[in-house]
C-alpha cells in the first residue's frame, strides 16, 4: 500500500501534476455530465442555457487551473511538488467550476445556487480526473524520460567505446610488435646457442632446450591471444528511434482492462450519484465489473492476435464494448436495481466507449514506453559492459607492454643467453668449468621464471 502511494506521489507531483492539453481529454465526459446535471435542476430551460452555464464553469476553472499551475505549481518542471499542494489545486479546480456555474446560473437566469451538487460533484470529478491524469501521464512521462536518458547515455558511452576500440587496436598492435620485435629474437638467439651445445653431454642442456621450446610456443600462444579480442559490436542503435508521442497512439494497439474498469467506475459514480443516488452508484459499479470481465476476455484474444488481424479485432471489440454496456444499462431494472432516472442504453454505451478508448490509449502508451525503456536499458548495459571490458583489457595490455619492453622478462632471457655464452667460455677456460653446473641450473631457473611470466600474461589476457 505504502509502495503504491509512493508510486502515485512520484508520478503525480512532478511535471504532470498539471498538464493542460491532456486535461482536455476529461472535458467531454465532464461537460456532458455537467449538462445532464444542469438539465435536472431546471427542466424548463432550453439546452443552450445549460450549455452556457456549464461553459461558464469550465472557462472559470480553466483560468483558475492556468493561474495555479503558473503560480502554486510553477516549479513542477524542476522538482516534485508537495502532495498537498497538488491535491489542493486538483480539487479546488472542480470547486471553482461548480461555483462559477452556480454564480452564472443564478446571476443570468435567476436559477437557484444548488451548491451542494453544483460544487460537490465537479470537485469530486475534476479533482479525481486531474489526479488520475497526473498519475498515469506522470508514469508514462517518467518512462519516456528514462528511455531518453538511457538512449542519450548509450550515445555518449558508444562514443567512448569507439575511442577505446581504436586505442585497443593500437595497444594490441604495439604489444604484438613488442613480442615479435623484442622477445622473439631473444628466444631465437637462445635456441641458436643451444643448437651448438651437445644435448647428450648433459641432461641440464636438454632441459634448457625443452624450456626454450616451451617458451617459444608460449610466445606463439601469447601472440595469438593478443590478436584475439572479444568482438565488440559496432554502433548499435535502438530498434525503434521514432519518439512515442501521445498522438502516435491515437489508435491504441491494446485493450485496457484495469484502467478501463477504473474509468468506468469513476464515470458511474460521477454520473449516477446526483442522478440516482447510491443505488445508481452500485448499479454503475456492478456495470464496471461486468465490463471488466468482458474486456478481460477481449483483451486476451487481442494479445494473441497478429498485427494484421489485430486492428480488425480491436474495432470489433469496441463494437462489443458498446453493445455490452448498452445491454447492461438495459438490463439494470430487470435484474433488480430500481433507478429513478436511468440512462438511455445507447447514450450510456457511448460514454463507456469513450472511457475505454481513453483508457486503452493510456494503457498502450504505458506498455510501449515500458518496453522501449527496457530495450534501451539492455542496450546501455551492454555498452557499459563493453566499456568495462575494453578498459580492463587496455590495462592488461599496457601491463603486458611494460613487462615485455622494460620488465624482467627480457632480463631473464638475456640472463639465460649470458649463461650459455659463459658455458662456451667454460669449455675454453678452467675458471668457468667449475661453475658449469651452477650456470646451467641458473639458466634453467631463469628460463623457468620467464616461462611462468609469459604464461601469467597469457592467463591475464585470456580472462
Amino acid at each position, binding site marked *: 500500500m505504502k509502495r503504491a502511494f509512493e508510486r502515485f506521489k512520484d508520478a503525480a507531483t512532478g511535471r504532470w501534476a498539471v498538464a493542460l492539453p491532456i486535461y482536455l481529454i476529461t472535458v467531454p465526459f465532464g461537460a456532458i455530465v455537467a449538462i445532464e446535471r444542469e438539465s435536472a435542476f431546471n427542466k424548463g430551460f432550453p439546452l443552450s442555457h445549460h450549455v452556457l452555464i456549464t461553459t461558464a464553469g469550465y472557462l472559470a476553472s480553466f*483560468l483558475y487551473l*492556468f493561474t495555479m499551475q503558473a503560480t502554486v505549481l510553477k516549479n513542477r518542471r524542476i522538482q516534485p511538488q508537495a502532495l498537498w499542494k497538488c491535491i489542493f489545486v486538483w480539487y479546488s479546480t472542480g470547486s471553482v467550476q461548480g461555483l462559477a456555474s452556480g454564480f452564472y446560473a443564478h446571476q443570468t437566469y435567476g436559477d437557484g445556487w444548488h451548491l451542494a451538487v453544483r460544487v460537490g460533484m465537479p470537485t469530486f470529478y475534476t479533482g479525481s480526473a486531474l489526479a488520475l491524469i497526473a498519475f498515469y501521464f506522470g508514469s508514462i512521462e517518467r518512462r519516456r524520460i528514462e528511455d531518453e536518458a538511457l538512449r*542519450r547515455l548509450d550515445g*555518449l558511452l558508444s562514443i567512448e567505446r569507439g575511442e577505446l576500440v581504436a586505442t585497443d587496436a593500437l595497444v594490441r598492435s604495439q604489444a604484438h610488435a613488442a613480442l615479435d620485435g623484442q622477445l622473439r629474437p631473444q628466444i631465437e638467439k637462445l635456441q641458436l646457442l643451444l643448437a651448438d651445445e651437445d644435448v647428450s653431454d648433459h641432461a641440464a642442456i636438454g632441459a634448457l632446450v625443452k624450456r626454450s621450446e616451451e617458451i617459444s610456443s608460449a610466445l606463439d600462444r601469447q601472440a595469438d591471444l593478443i590478436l584475439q579480442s572479444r568482438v565488440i559490436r559496432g554502433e548499435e542503435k535502438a530498434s525503434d528511434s521514432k519518439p512515442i508521442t501521445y498522438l502516435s497512439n491515437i489508435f491504441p494497439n491494446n485493450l485496457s482492462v484495469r484502467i478501463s474498469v477504473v474509468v468506468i467506475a469513476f464515470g458511474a459514480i460521477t454520473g449516477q450519484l446526483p442522478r440516482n443516488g447510491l443505488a445508481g452508484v452500485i448499479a454503475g459499479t456492478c456495470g464496471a465489473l461486468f465490463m471488466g470481465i468482458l474486456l478481460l476476455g477481449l483483451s486476451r484474444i487481442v494479445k494473441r492476435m497478429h498485427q494484421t488481424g489485430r486492428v480488425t479485432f480491436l474495432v470489433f471489440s469496441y463494437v462489443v464494448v458498446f453493445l455490452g454496456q448498452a445491454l447492461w444499462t438495459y438490463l439494470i431494472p430487470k435484474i433488480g436495481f430500481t433507478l429513478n432516472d436511468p440512462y438511455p442504453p445507447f447514450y450510456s454505451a457511448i460514454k463507456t466507449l469513450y472511457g475505454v478508448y481513453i483508457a486503452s490509449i493510456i494503457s498502450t502508451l504505458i506498455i510501449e514506453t515500458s518496453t522501449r525503456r527496457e530495450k534501451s536499458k539492455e542496450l546501455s548495459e551492454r555498452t557499459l559492459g563493453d566499456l568495462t571490458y575494453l578498459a580492463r583489457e587496455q590495462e592488461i595490455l599496457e601491463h603486458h607492454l611494460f613487462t615485455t619492453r622494460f620488465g624482467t622478462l627480457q632480463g631473464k632471457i638475456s640472463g639465460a643467453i649470458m649463461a650459455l655464452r659463459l658455458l662456451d667460455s667454460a669449455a675454453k677456460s678452467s675458471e668457468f668449468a667449475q661453475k658449469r653446473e651452477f650456470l646451467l641450473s641458473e639458466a634453467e631457473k631463469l628460463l623457468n621464471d620467464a616461462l611462468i611470466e609469459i604464461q601469467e600474461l597469457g592467463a591475464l589476457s585470456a580472462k
Partner: protein
Amino acid sequence: MLSVRSNLVIKEIRLILDSLPDIWTSWKSFFWTYPFSLIGVLLLSSVEYKTFEEFLTWVLIATLSHLAMAPFILYGQARNGVGIQIFLVLLMGITRGAVIAILAPIFGVVDSMSFLFRVTNSAVAVFYWFQVGSILIHFMFNFRKDVKKLIEESILTETQLRNIEPDVSSKMLLTRISELQQNIVRTLEGKPTVEKLQLRAADIDRLIKEHLRPLSHSEWREGELIWVRAGFGRMSLTTLKRHPIPLWGIVALTLPFSLVGQFARYGGLETLVIQSLWILLAVVAWLTTNKFIRVVDGNFQRRNILLIFSTIFFIGPLTFYAQLFWPNNQFTLGNILTGQVLSSISFALFCLITSLTFSLRADEKSVFRAISEQIRERDLQRYIDLGVKSNAEAEYAQYLHAEVQSQLLACKLLLLKAAEEDFKLFPPEVTQQILDRLEKIKEPYTRPPARLPSQRLAELANSWRGLAEIEYELAPEIDDVAAPLDVISQLIEESVVNAIRHGKAKKIEVKGNFVNGIFNFEISDDGVSDLVSGGKGLGTILFQTFASDWTVKRVGNQTIATFKVMKKVSPV
C-alpha cells in the same frame, strides 16, 4: 488534366504549409489582432445598437473575450511546432467565442449568433488572424535572427553553397559583405590580437543589425529587396508582380473552415450549394484570367489583380444573389451583405498575404544564398581558427571546447549514476534537466584524455592561462586508480570554472587530501562568486549527486568552496 490540377493543388498546399512559422501564438500577434477582434464582434454581434451604452457594452465584451486568449499566448509561446500551435489557436478561438456568448447575458445584451455559431465563427476567425499575423511577424522580426544563425552555421559547419548566382536584388548587401570580408582578410594578414578579432566579430553583428533589418531601417527604402519598399500598398503590388496567387492551395486549405463556419450559420444544403457555386465560379475566373492575360517577363501583376477583382466583383455578387433568393432564408439583406463583404475582403487579404509570404520567402532565400556565396569557403572558419590558435588561453577557446566538453562529461556522469540506481536517485524532472542540457549542446562528445585529477587540473590551468591563475596541491592518493577519478576531476573542474565564470576570479587554489576513506577538497579564489549551493543548475545537481558534503562561503576577500567525496561514491 485532373492529375495535373491535383498536383498543382498539392504543390500549392505544400508551399503554404512550408511557409508557416513554428510559433503562431505571440504577444505581437495578440495585440495586432485586437482591432480585428473588436471590429468582428461589433459588426456581427448585434443587428442594431439601440443605445450608445449597448455599443460600449459590446466593446467591453470584445475586449474581455480577446483578453481571455492571453493565457494561451503565455502557454504557447514556448511551444514550438505547427501541430500544437494550430491546436492552441483553435482553442483560443473557441474560448474567445465562448466568453462572448457567456458575457452577453451577464451584461444584459443579446448576441445575434447562437452559441455554436459564435464559437465556430470565433475559432475560424482567430485561426486565420493568428496564421496571417504569425507569418508577417516571422518575416518582420525573425529574419535577422535567421541570418545570424546562417552565418554561425556557415562558420561552424563549413557550409559550402557554390555556383549560386546571387540575386540582383541583394546588390547592396553584397557590397557590405565584401567590405566585411576585406576587413577580415586585412586583420588576418597581420598578427591579430583578441581586440582586433573581437572588432571583426562585432562587424558581423553590425552587418546583420544595420543591413538585414526588414521594414525598419531607412536605408532599406533605397534598396531593392521587397520589404524595404515600406508601405503596404507598394509592397503588395510588388508581391503580386512576382508570384502567381496560389489560388487552389488557398481554396483547399480554407475550405474546411469555410464549411464549418457556414454550416453553423446557414445549414448543410445551403452551404454545399453556395460553396460549390463559389468554387465553380473561381475555376471559371482562374481559367479566364490564365487564358486572356499573358505573363510578360515573369510579371504576374495584371493576372493576379484581375483574379482578385473577379473574386470581389463577380463571384461575390453572384453568390450574394444566390443566398438572397435562397428559399426559407432567415437572414436579412444586411446580414448577408455583411457576411459577403467580410468573406470577400478576407479572401482577397488571404491571397495577398500568401503571395507576400511566398515572395518574402523567395527573397529571404536569395539573401541567404548571397551571403553563403560571399562568405568564401572557410574564410570565416580560418578567421576563427586563427583567433583561437593565437589566443589559446583565451575565454573563447575554453568556451568553445573545454567548457562544453566538461558539461557533456558532467551529463554523462549524472546519467550513468542515475541509470545505475535505476533512476531512483533523482526525480524525472532532474533527469529531464540533464537531457535538456544535452539537447542544447550541439558539439559532439569526446572522452577526456586525462582521467587523473592532477592531470585534469594541469589541463585546466593551461586552458585558463591568461585569464586566471590556477594552483593546486593534491595528495597522491587522489590519483589512485581505486578512487572515483572522473567524479573528483569533474567536481574540481566545476568549482574552478564556476569561480572564473561567475565569480570573475583571477587566482584559484585547489587543495585536496585523503583522510579515513574520504577525499576532502577546498577551492579558494579571489572572486565574488554567488553561493552556488542555492542554484538549480547542472552544477548543483552534480554536487548533490556526488559530493557527500559541500559548501560555498565567503571568508574575508575570498570565496571558499569545499566538498567531500567518499571513496566508494561511484564506480563510474
